[in-house]
Each structure stands twice: as C-alpha cells, then as structure tokens.
C-alpha cells in the first residue's frame, strides 16, 4: 500500500491535542454506558410494553424530583433506573467543562500564557455558572 497523504502529514505541533481528544472520547463513552445501563435497568423493571410507551404515560404528569446531585447519588444504591440515567446525563454535561479545563492545562504545558489566561477565564465562568445556577442543585435535600 502506498503512503496515502493524511493527517499524519500535518506539522508535528499537535502537542497534547491527542490526549484531550482521547480524554473526551472516554468521557463520552462512559456517560453513554451509564445512560444505557439506566435504560436497561428500567427495561428490566417495567417490562417491554411499559418501557416503549413510558414517556407518554409518565412524563407529562410526573415531574422529576431528581434535581440535585445529592438526590441523584442517593438513589444510585440500590440503583433506581432514572437516577442511573441522570448520573449519565450529568457526566455528559460535565464533558465540555472538563474539555476547557484540559485545554487550559494543554496551553500551560505549551507555555502559551495568553491562552492559559483566556481559557482559564472561560473555565472560571463555567464553574461560577454551575455554582450559582446549580446552587439549588448542589445544596438539594
């Protein structure tokens, strides 16, 4: 096979990008796996028919009371299917935030201080948003 031109021909200044990329891939896979486990658990609990029509029956009437990290984690043992799904969704929500954090570290390793400041600022705003917006979420019952 002749050498096909590809991404390997790019200049070697990838830095930590492959690491950030791999980190993201495993984070997303983990989140998807947890959500899938939640779905399988609820499938086992309620059976196929209820499972397939579930949103129609339950969602409009019943609000979720899993609105805080504490509530979600409390219901994980023994596993309540909805809490497992929520844990997966929370993992997913955390991935972009962690990516910005990882990028900040990447820029620091590259000694790119201007971008350490810029992405550090974005990371701080994100964390602040979580703390302020999710104050109820973090301090929940």
């Amino acid at each position, binding site marked *: 096979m002749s050498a096909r*031109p590809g991404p390997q021909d*790019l200049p070697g200044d990838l830095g930590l990008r492959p690491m950030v*990329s791999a980190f993201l891939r495993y984070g997303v896979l983990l*989140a*998807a796996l947890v959500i899938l486990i939640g779905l399988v658990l609820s499938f086992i609990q309620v059976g196929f028919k209820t499972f397939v029509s*579930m949103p129609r029956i339950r969602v409009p009437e019943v609000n*979720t009371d899993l*609105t805080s990290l504490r509530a979600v984690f409390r219901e994980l043992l023994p596993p309540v299917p909805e809490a497992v799904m929520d844990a997966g969704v929370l993992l997913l929500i955390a991935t972009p935030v962690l990516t910005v954090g990882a990028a900040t570290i990447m820029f620091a390793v590259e000694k790119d201080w201007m971008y350490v400041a810029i992405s550090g600022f*974005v990371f701080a705003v994100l964390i602040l948003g979580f703390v302020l917006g999710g104050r109820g979420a973090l301090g929940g019952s």
Partner: protein
Amino acid sequence: MFFWIFLFSVGAGIGGAILGLGGGVIIVPALTLLLNLPIRFAIGASIVAVIATSSGTASAYIRDQLTNLRIGIALEVMTTMGALSGAVIAGHVSPRWLYIIFGLLLAYSALALLGRLKIELPGEVPYDPLASRLRFSGVYYDQALRQRVPYIATGVAPAGVMMYAAGIFSGLLGIGSGLFKVLAMDIAMRLPMKVSTSTSNFMVGVTAAASAGVYFSRGDIHPVVAAPVALGVLLGAWIGARVMGQLRNTTIRKLFIPVLAIVAVSMIYRGLTVR
C-alpha cells in the same frame, strides 16, 4: 414513542455535527409538535442534545485539527459576556422585536451566504493584526480535497461583535447561537467552512454547559426524555463527524443555507404572532 425520540435524536445529531448547530432546531419542534411533550422538557432535552452533539464530535474534530481550540475558546469569552448581558437585560426588552431582529439578521445572512456558495476555500484574506496577535490560524488535512489546508483568520473584531450578539440572543431566547457562530466565522473571519462548523460545535457545548446547571436544578432535564435523546444524539453525532470530513466545504454551505432560511422565516413569524 421511545423509539421516535431516539430516531429524531439520531437525525438531530447527524445534522448538528455537520452544520455546527446544537440540534435544538430539530429536537424542540420534534418533541413538542410531533410527540406532544411539554415545552420545558423539550428545552431541557435540547440542552442535553447540544452538549451531546458537541462532545460526541469534539473528540474526532480535535484529533483531526478541524476544531481550532484557540479560536473557539477566545471567542467563547465574547459569547459568555453576551449571555451575561442577555440575562441582565431580560425582562426589559420585548421578545417580539428580538425575534424579528434575529430573524431579519439570519435572513440577511442567508443572502450573504448565497454569494459565497461557490467558495471552497477562502484563499488569501486581508491581513488582520488582531488575528495574528491572537494567533488565529491553523492547518488541517481536507479529506475531500486530499490536501493540507493552511488558513488564517481575518475580521476578528466584527466576528467578536457577532459572537457577543450571539450570546445576547441565546441568553434571551435560548436558541440560535450555533447558527450565529458559524456565520461569524464564515462571513467575518473567512475560515474554511469545516473549521467554522467544527469550532462552532465545540463552542455550543461549552455555552450550553454554562446554563445546564440551571435547567437541571429546575427539573427541566427529565431522565426519561433526556436519556434516549442523549444516546440518539451521540450516535448521530458520531456518524455525522465521520461524514463531515468527506464532504466539500461548498456542500456543507449548501446544506446550511436552507436551515438558515427556515429558521429566519419561523423567527420572523413568531415575532409577528407572539403576544
């Protein structure tokens, strides 16, 4: 029902991954109009969908150097400040005019993009000292053209203003920031279309994550709706990211314009009919 949510989500994931949108444009109408779910769960699910599209594609796009992390993160500062301003002025401006202004801006952009329909790569762009100071440049390997494409941004200041506006609009209306981000990078900064959409993909996830905490603590993110949406969108985004690399920049632009036009018309319509 369950199956349909999943299926719509796969579609939203593919579309979002290719066009650099969150996919809320597809998710919200599908869940509310076709499946009769309450709007708050639909919006909560769309926040999850946006993050899923972003995270589902980010790994591939960062590895292939399509996403320009510098540009994305630096512009995210403007979007974040815009979103904060939006939160401050919320309640002081009428949604009617917001919808109409937003719709007209998008309609105008659709026309502007028509003139750029044939442009595959930006080529030489005017020198922008701000772009060179911020090192808004890069190189990626184009799988469709089978060549390395180096690029450098221009028009950073107008793009920054557009990003700020995108933040205000998405802070007030909860929508449309992906469209605006792609437009700012394509029209003002004149980046290759693929770089624009994949960098926008990265950015919309960060923007959505900033507000996700609020939605979650309000109980708008319902696990039974969000779980199939998340899985479907992740699958769709994974497929979309693989398709996108093979597409030509002009093809992506051709797919982008009709979406832009439809959203523009529906925004103006909503502005005219909202009470």
